[in-house]
């Protein structure tokens, strides 16, 4: 809480003293209102939220002690500082017993007043910060609870009914003899949609497992050229449909690494799918797989929409999607097509488990270049190792 967010009400029957306090407090950066007596002050407290009330004790209509009692019973968080001209310790003690924060003696020593006000302000600020922390904590708890529930549902509960639904859809497909165009189209939509849901469940499961190091990633000898060929065959048609030129350049040297074949396939496919999603029709995408300094570089460069500079740090965060919702298409093969923003975070987690690196160079409206760097393995030095392949627990995060 900033100083100018602290509102002070000065209650003093003597105008000149009232004005003096007002100007002084304002010069210290506080917002200040004034009242002539306790009754007016109470009314003002009903209208506005004050953090501090500085009140004289001896006033007509309603004195400071009565005001203090009423303030504390209605708004216990308001800090009340009493000013007493009696110079009697008894009245100050009584005020403190009733809940006053501190007291100021007349004649006023403004060094003392400043010290008291600063102390009071620090207390109010600390309480406000505590409140913010409590709120943040509540939000975190809420988020955690929701996240756990969601992950439990996607990982455990939805999987079975989805499998059953898919099974019955397959049965229905088998029942139809010579389906007409409309039925075929509906069947196709059913297939695609159940597949999308299955994919979501699988991805959430994999991402969570990778993040918590729960997954047993295989440590096998993988020929990246074979993986890329397979991925290329899967996606080439989609690029052709969108008239996006897809060029692939592969190093002639052997490109083997150790890792999990399926995860590497997922990484390669994800980056290509990402390029497809964010490159407009008739754009171009260049894929390179090459050996440099004992490392394999897999790079995907597109002529797409690029990523704003301020978003490049969060692009690998979970659920992050660069496009605006209004542009979001339902099909994941369309330009700025559907997705949940978990693909790139999954890629990053997988690459982390393989001791690799991922780099991004992107220019808004010019395109993006994603580069995966993995340690090379020389298969000739690994004779016999293939049979010794063993599962390694990934250490993500």
């Amino acid at each position, binding site marked *: 809480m900033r100083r100018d967010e602290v509102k002070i009400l000065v209650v003093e029957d003597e105008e000149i003293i009232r004005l003096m306090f007002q100007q002084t407090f304002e010069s210290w950066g506080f917002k200040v209102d004034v009242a002539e007596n306790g009754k007016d002050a109470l009314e003002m407290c009903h209208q506005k939220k004050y953090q501090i009330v500085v009140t004289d004790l001896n006033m007509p209509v309603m004195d400071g002690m009565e005001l203090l009692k009423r303030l504390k019973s209605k708004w216990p968080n308001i800090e009340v500082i009493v000013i007493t001209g009696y110079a009697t310790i008894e009245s100050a003690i009584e005020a403190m017993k009733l809940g006053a924060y501190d007291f100021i003696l007349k004649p006023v020593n403004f060094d003392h007043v400043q010290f008291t006000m600063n102390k009071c302000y620090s207390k109010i*600020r600390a309480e406000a*910060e505590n409140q*913010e*922390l409590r*709120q*943040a904590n509540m*939000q*975190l708890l*809420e*988020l955690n609870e*929701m*996240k756990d*529930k*969601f992950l439990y*549902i996607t990982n455990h*509960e*939805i999987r079975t*009914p*989805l499998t*059953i*639904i898919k099974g*019955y*859809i397959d*049965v*229905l497909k088998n*029942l*139809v*003899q010579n*389906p*007409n165009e*409309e*039925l075929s189209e*509906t*069947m196709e*939509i*059913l297939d695609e*949609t*159940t597949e*999308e*849901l299955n994919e*979501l469940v699988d991805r959430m499961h994999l991402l969570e497992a990778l993040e918590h190091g729960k997954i047993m990633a295989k440590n096998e000898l993988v020929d990246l050229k074979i993986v890329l060929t397979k991925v290329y065959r899967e996606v080439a048609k989609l690029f052709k449909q969108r008239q996006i030129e897809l060029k692939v350049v592969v190093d002639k040297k052997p490109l083997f690494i150790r890792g999990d074949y399926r995860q590497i396939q997922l990484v390669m496919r994800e980056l290509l799918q990402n390029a497809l999603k964010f490159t407009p029709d008739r754009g171009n995408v260049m894929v390179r797989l090459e050996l440099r300094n004992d490392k394999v570089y897999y790079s995907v460069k597109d002529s797409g929409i690029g990523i704003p500079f301020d978003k490049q740090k969060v692009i690998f965060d*979970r*659920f992050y999607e660069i496009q605006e919702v209004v542009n979001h298409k339902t099909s994941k093969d369309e330009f700025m097509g559907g997705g*949940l*923003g978990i693909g790139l975070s999954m890629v990053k987690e997988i690459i982390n488990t393989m001791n690799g690196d991922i780099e991004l160079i992107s220019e808004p409206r010019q395109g993006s270049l994603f580069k995966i760097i993995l340690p090379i393995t020389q298969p000739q030095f690994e004779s016999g190792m293939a049979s010794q392949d063993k599962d390694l627990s990934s250490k993500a995060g």
Partner: protein
Amino acid sequence: MDSKSKDVLICEDCRLQLQDFESLLSFIRSRLDVIGTSIYLLENNWSDKTSDPGKYFKKINDEMELIRKLINI
């Protein structure tokens, strides 16, 4: 105070992520709606009179109802 700005940042992150989970749920709901509509269309346009797909439509709808209840969080 530095800690203050950090606290606010935590809150903003929370809000962002809660929205993200909402969007995931909304993704699942929308796909269930697509499946529901497709099943309805399939049932109404079923041309093959020799087969009786009714029980399968019912089972699919039952499973979808189960998922809907599960994600009603």
